[in-house]
Every structure is written in C-alpha cells, then in structure tokens.
C-alpha cells in the first residue's frame, strides 16, 4: 500500500495541479484576476518549465537526502533571488539587449539544468544543490520581472509554489517509474537544454537588424502647421488697470 502510494504520488500531484490550471484557464478572461492571468500567461511558458522539469529529472537520479538538499537549495535560491533582485538587474544590465529578454534569466536556468543532466550521475549528486540554487534564483528574478501587481507577495509565493510543484512532480514521477535507460535519455535532453540556452543567449546578445528606411522622395510629409499659434506669440503685458499693452 505504502509503496503504491509513493509510486502514484508524483502523477497524482501532477494531475491535481494540471486540473487546477485547466479550471483557471476555463474562466472567462474578464473574470480572471491579475494573479490568475499571470499564472496562465507568464508562468506557464516553455522557457520557465523546461529547467524545472530538468532539475526534477536530475533529482530522480540521486539519493533521497541529496534530492532533499536540492529542493531546499531551490527554495533558498528563490529567497536569495528576491533579496538580490536589484543587484542582479544592475549586474546584467551591462549585457546587450538584456532588458528585452528578462535579463537572460531563462538561458542561465537552461544552462544550469542542461549541465546537471549531461554530466555522469556520479557528478550529478554534487551539482544538484548548486544548480537548484541557481535555477531557484533565476525563477525568483523572472517572477519579480513579470509580476504585474508590483510588490505584491502573492505572485511571488504562487510563482515559487508552481516551480516547486513542477520540480517535485517530475522528481516523484521519474523516481517511481525509473528505468535504466532514463539517465541516458535525459543526457540527450540535457544537451538540448544547453543548446537552447546558448542559442537563445547568443541571439539575445546580438542586436536585431533594423528595417531599412524608405527613400525620402516617397514619403508624403505633411506641411508643418502650428497647432497652438498663441504659444509662439509674444506675451502681452498687462497694465495695472487690466488692459493689455502691445509688445
């Protein structure tokens, strides 16, 4: 009974979360509050979910206590990320186009998750804690950057909770249905994560080509017109009796 409960804990947890998200998505857009909108449109993205799934998968290949350390490091990283958000932004602002790409939080997370998956399992147990910390910190920074409520803690708690849900669901599900070929399969997936992270990071750093400007002859420029001519007029001086004096 116990082993069966442990076996199905991951899928049940995943199903419960998925049902809650689907129910929220079925709500008409006008009835959705800001937090629900954020969860559906900002938290549920591939760039957000992939590193969390990767971290959960890597945790499934290490011992229980090491996975526990990983989850604790993820939570600590999230707290650290919220605490040092301003410093992170200031540090990353030097990277070209960083502001357009959430200060490269997604590529950094993907690289951390990819590295964790691609190394041999003997190294995974050492890297799981620092990688979980980095992924947690990047998630917190992304939450802080996309939070529409401005300084509302509800979005931060829900965002980290969703992250933990994704990590723990993946961890429990893979652990329960472990197969010998899974570490090899996830090593291939890890190489994809690294490739995505590097390509996304690289493409973000390169300036997007601007559209060529049209030749001036073809432009129909409207004649200049002063909409407020009275502004350009010299101010009329007023006499003490109220009559104006021409300048």
């Amino acid at each position, binding site marked *: 009974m116990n082993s069966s409960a442990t076996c199905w804990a991951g899928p049940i947890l995943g199903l419960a979360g998925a049902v809650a998200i689907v129910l929220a998505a079925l709500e008409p857009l006008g009835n959705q509050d800001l937090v629900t909108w954020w969860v559906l449109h900002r938290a549920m993205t*591939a*760039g957000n979910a*992939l590193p969390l799934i990767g971290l959960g998968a890597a945790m499934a290949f290490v011992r229980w206590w090491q996975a526990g350390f990983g989850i604790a490091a993820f939570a600590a990283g999230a707290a650290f990320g919220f605490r040092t958000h301003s410093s992170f932004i200031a540090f990353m602002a030097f990277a070209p186009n960083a502001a357009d*790409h959430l200060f490269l939080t*997604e*590529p950094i997370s993907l690289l951390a998750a990819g590295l964790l998956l*691609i190394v041999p399992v003997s190294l995974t147990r050492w890297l799981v804690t620092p990688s979980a910390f980095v992924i947690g910190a990047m998630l917190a920074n992304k939450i802080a950057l996309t939070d529409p409520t401005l300084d509302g803690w509800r979005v931060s708690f829900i965002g980290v909770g969703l992250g933990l849900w994704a990590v723990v669901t993946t961890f429990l599900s893979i652990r329960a249905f472990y197969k010998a070929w899974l570490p*090899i399969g996830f*090593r*291939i*997936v*890890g*190489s*994809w994560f*690294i*490739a*995505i992270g*590097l*390509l*996304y990071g*690289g*493409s*973000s750093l*390169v*300036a*997007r*080509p601007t559209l060529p400007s049209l030749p001036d002859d073809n432009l129909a420029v409207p004649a200049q017109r002063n909409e407020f001519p009275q502004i350009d007029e010299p101010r009329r001086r007023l006499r003490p009796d109220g009559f104006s004096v021409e300048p």
Partner: protein
Amino acid sequence: MTSDQTRNRRTTILLISLFGLLAAPGVANAHVIQAGASGFQSGFVHPLTGPDHFLAMFAVGLWGAQMGGRSIWTLPVTFPLIMVIGGIMGILGIPLVGIELGIALSIIALGLAIAFAWKPPEWVALLLISVFAICHGYAHGSELPRAADPADFAIGFVIATGFIHLFGIGVGLALHKPYQGRIARILGGLIALGGCYFLVP
C-alpha cells in the same frame, strides 16, 4: 478481386506516390524563412518541414543506433552541442562559405556510412558529426536574430531536432535485427540519394 487486379492497383498507388514525391520542391526548405520567424511553433516546424535538415538529423540517430554501444547517445548529444558553435557563428554573422554544400554533403556522407554499415572509432564519428553540425547550426543561427521571439524559436527547433534524432534511434534499433540490418542499410542508401538531390542547384 483477382490477384492481378490487386497487383495493378498497388502499382498504380505506388506510381502516384512516386509522382507525388517528384512534385516536391527541390530547395533546402529548412533554411528559408520568408517573413521572419516567430515563436515556438515556427521553430518546431522549421526542421520538420525542411527535408535536408530532417534527413541529416534522422541519419545521425540511425547511424548511432547502427553503431551501437555508447554511440547510440554520444552522437545525438554531440550534435546539438557543436551545432551551437555553428549557430553562434551564424548569429554573429561570421562569414562561412559552402554551408548549403556542407549540408548536402552531410546527408550523403551519413547515408553512405549507414549504407556500408561503417563503424569507425567513436572519435572519428564524433569529428565527422561535429563538422556537419557546424554547417546545420550556422544555417539556423543566422536566422535566429531575425526571429520575433528567439527564445521560443530556439526551444522549438532544438526540441524538434532532438525528436528527429530520437526517431532515427528508434528506427535504427527496430531495424537492427530484421534481415541482419539490411533494411537500415537500404534506408542509408536512400538518404545518400536524397543528399545528391540537394547538390543539384
């Protein structure tokens, strides 16, 4: 229905299918973006709809499965990692000549390797794969900065590329035993012929 009628019907279907294949365009579609790439869907469909990229990725998986052992996963792991180097060169606009030729040659070489069941030392296979990966990565990388959403585009096309590798591995493992792997070798020959098609301007 007599056996002759059945045979005639099958022949007709086969001929119609062959004519349908001949009607397929001869350009390297995997590396043409008409109006700017957009998000995940565009990135995901990109390698699947370009026969040159699809054949090369499929061949990488198939060859790895045919070689067996560690090569089953080392080849598909190496390919995207080295593809990134080519991709970054493309993103930065570093000029590289003969990319389309390299892509066509990659299909021919991989197809021939499968057709002759060539099992070189692992480092030779990885070196060969790396050269081809740079060509494919460069072609994709040069398009990435133009993408409306580079993140989703990169995620889409790397995942699709990975799925094609996995499909190749699956087919390779399934065809390893029947007829002593001859079907896989015939597939390799067809892939090489497909590569010759892309050499024609």
